[in-house]
């Protein structure tokens, strides 16, 4: 009934509008065409566009070529890397964290907030979103998380979708273990002197320690068992990057140091360390040292590494400089064969870049590169060609789906 009333009013308006036009001498010829009933036109006039229902978009299955990128200190914005367009928004601030489940049906954010924005009661949550609707489905209470700027390794998920691990610092350090099926914290494990999370293939994770060792926490839902390795790197002279990479399916890790040494490891209660190799030597250059005036190509940035596990390639964001430039923006991405310890490719970036990530597919992988200015570049990871340049106001933290 409402619709038919509307139809009637539309008709009236139409008539009046055309009436006005026909009286307007300035439009004599144009008006003639319309006022004469449109007979001079080849086709009859199209019916007016119909009223539209407001609806809400849903997303298809999380594509290999999507990335969630921190923007504006209020959210992660979901980008379609092929089109360079936005698909949706997941709230999270600079101090918050985001991870995608292996099956890509869930997005989790570990967040801290105050009931009155910058004051009031502090609350910490693991928030669970379903990917198709980006709907906040659950908020799981957490003990106070560590607050740090953009540390992907402060929140990790197990590949089987059972566990989330959240790093805490108060300033005593520990890890909250969330059972994602029951949606609650089942255990908080102290990790004194150690930080960050590198999940194992099954039921556990390791953390990096200030003395150059690993703390390993086995937890299958019942009892937590903690082991400690011997030191394998010297944190005083050449620490391992926080942004070192792990394959959560296999528990294999690549720990990369400030100078560019790569320590491969298979994580478990008794981690097995592989042969260390140098990013520079693998590129037929001398090993880089720790000299404050020792010029070399060095890894650095806010998110300087991406391990493409399907291709077994390590992407490293590189710049030239002396030691202590581990936070400096990169100008090239060097692509390594992780097995052969061999440089495969050098991709010249369109400008100084803080962070990189690579889409997980092997067919036409995309390289996402974020500039400190907030500009997002999308490149072919094969050819290095820039396919999209977006004024995205993004910060240096990107999350792509990984196995």
């Amino acid at each position, binding site marked *: 009934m409402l619709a038919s009333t509307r139809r009637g009013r539309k008709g009236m308006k139409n008539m009046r509008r055309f009436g006005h036009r026909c009286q307007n001498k300035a439009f004599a010829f144009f008006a003639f065409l319309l006022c004469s009933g449109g007979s001079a036109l080849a086709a009859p006039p199209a019916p007016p566009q119909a009223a539209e229902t*407001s609806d809400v978009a849903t997303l298809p299955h999380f594509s290999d070529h999507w990335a969630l990128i921190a923007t504006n200190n*209020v959210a992660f914005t979901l980008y379609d890397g092929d089109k360079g367009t936005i698909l949706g928004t997941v709230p999270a601030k600079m101090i918050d964290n985001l991870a995608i489940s292996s099956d890509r049906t869930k997005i989790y954010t570990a967040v801290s907030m105050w009931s009155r924005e910058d004051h009031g009661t502090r609350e910490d949550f693991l928030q669970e979103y379903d990917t198709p*609707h980006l709907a906040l489905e659950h908020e799981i209470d957490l003990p106070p998380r560590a607050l740090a700027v953009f540390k992907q390794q402060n929140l990790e998920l197990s590949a089987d979708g059972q566990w989330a691990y959240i790093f805490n610092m108060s300033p005593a350090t520990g890890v909250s273990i969330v059972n994602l099926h029951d949606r609650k914290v089942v255990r908080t494990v102290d990790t004194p002197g150690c930080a960050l999370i590198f999940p194992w293939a099954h039921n556990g994770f390791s953390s990096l320690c200030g003395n150059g060792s690993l703390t390993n926490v086995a937890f299958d839902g019942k009892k937590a068992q903690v082991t400690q390795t011997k030191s394998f790197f010297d944190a005083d002279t050449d620490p391992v990057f926080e942004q070192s990479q792990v394959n959560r399916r296999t528990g294999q890790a690549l720990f990369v140091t400030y100078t560019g040494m790569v320590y491969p490891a298979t994580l478990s209660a008794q981690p097995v360390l592989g042969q260390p190799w140098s990013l520079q030597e693998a590129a037929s250059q001398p090993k880089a040292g720790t000299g404050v005036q020792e010029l070399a190509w060095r890894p650095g940035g806010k998110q300087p590494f991406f391990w493409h596990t399907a291709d077994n390639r390590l992407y490293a964001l590189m710049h030239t400089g002396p030691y202590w430039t581990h936070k400096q923006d990169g100008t090239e991405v060097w692509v390594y064969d992780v097995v052969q310890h061999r440089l495969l490719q050098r991709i010249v970036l369109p400008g100084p870049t803080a962070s990189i990530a690579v889409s997980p597919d092997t067919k036409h992988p995309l390289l996402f590169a974020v500039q400190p200015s907030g500009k997002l570049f999308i490149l072919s990871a094969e050819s290095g060609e820039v396919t999209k340049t977006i004024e995205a106001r993004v910060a240096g933290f990107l999350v792509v789906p990984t196995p």
Partner: protein
Amino acid sequence: MRVPLFDRVTETFTRHLASHSPRRQFLGWFSTFVAGSGAFPLLPVQRAQAESRASVPVPPNTASDFDRLAQSVDPTKCNYWRHCAIDGVLCGCCGGGVHTCPPGTQPSPVSWIGTCRNPSDGRQYVIAYRDCCGRTTCASTPDCHCNTADREMPIYRPQTSNDIIWCFGTTSTTYHCSTAAIVGQA
């Protein structure tokens, strides 16, 4: 002083609303009107056909600058014809569409309205600028932030005022982005 044609049409429309409903209840009535319009059956879309024809030229001396320069091809641009009085981030740049909210947000059942001319059929349409609500503001690229003001009125004429956060009756009243749905012909 000559009152331009399209303004007169719009004024009649808004005056009609104003005079037939007690002001106190006006917004309530308006809400029902706009919310109800969302339930219209969608007629078969004739738009592709309409656009295959040449655009209907804008009468050069009775149209606003926006109308004269508007296009009907790309709804993610500020100069898309429906955006003659929008203030905000286009939902089409945020994972939604011209009448579609991005995933995770909720369309407001009430909205402000504009009256815009479609260059592809020469008709004036009433546009409901429904905000999508309940999530932090979409971080789109700056070219998706639009602020146009054809027939836009101050907040004491709320139905055509575009600085208001039109998130009434949604679960959360936080602003995410704005859509521009056709309500009907003006």
